[in-house]
């Protein structure tokens, strides 16, 4: 099972959920949308957490750009548009966990 974690705002419990999935041999990836993209910003106290989780991180291109974070991201993210987000949710991953 491959889970996609949709993170739109509050990142509490994110690390716990990712580690718990890993403990069961499951794969997890994170999709940052809306204010969730601030988690990859160099000013976010939780950006290190995101890096040390060593999971694939996607971020909504529109939400990163409108917030002016293009040059401020410190996490390696794949910028994705809505079409790709739908493919991630519907085809590339088996389950969506909304946070």
């Amino acid at each position, binding site marked *: 099972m491959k889970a996609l974690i949709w993170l739109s705002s509050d990142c509490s419990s994110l690390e716990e959920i990712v580690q718990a999935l890993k403990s069961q041999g499951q794969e997890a990836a994170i999709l940052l949308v809306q204010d969730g993209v601030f988690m990859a910003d160099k000013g976010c106290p939780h950006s290190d957490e995101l890096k040390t989780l060593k999971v694939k991180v996607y971020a*909504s291109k529109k939400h990163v750009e409108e917030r002016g974070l293009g040059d401020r991201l410190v996490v390696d993210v794949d910028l994705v548009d809505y079409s790709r987000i739908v493919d991630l949710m*519907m085809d590339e991953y088996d389950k969506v966990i909304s946070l």
Partner: protein
Amino acid sequence: MNKKTLGVLLLTSPYTYQNSETFYEIAKAALEKGHEVKVFLFVDGVNNAKLNQEPDPERPMNERFQELADAGAVFQACGLCTTARGFDQEGADYTPGVEVTGLTELAEIVGECDRFLTFVP
């Protein structure tokens, strides 16, 4: 790719939360790819269906709901949330195509979808 069904739970108001924008874009993209979209409006999410919202050129909510409904999206709105907020329990205040129902219909969507997405505040 297989055609699948996306279930959506929308909990927040339009204009006030970006969720409504993102919901529209995601639902539109999913429908264009041939997926089905089934939406349950819950808590302040029922406000998204209100008719006569001013057509803000950037965010014409009524047109967007109509466009998604015309493209096949199914909309249900929680009845208790609807009447609590002073809207007609038959759906007369809502975009055509939005049905006022209850949590059993949310449970139906949960049983009929391949993926489920919650738009939290």
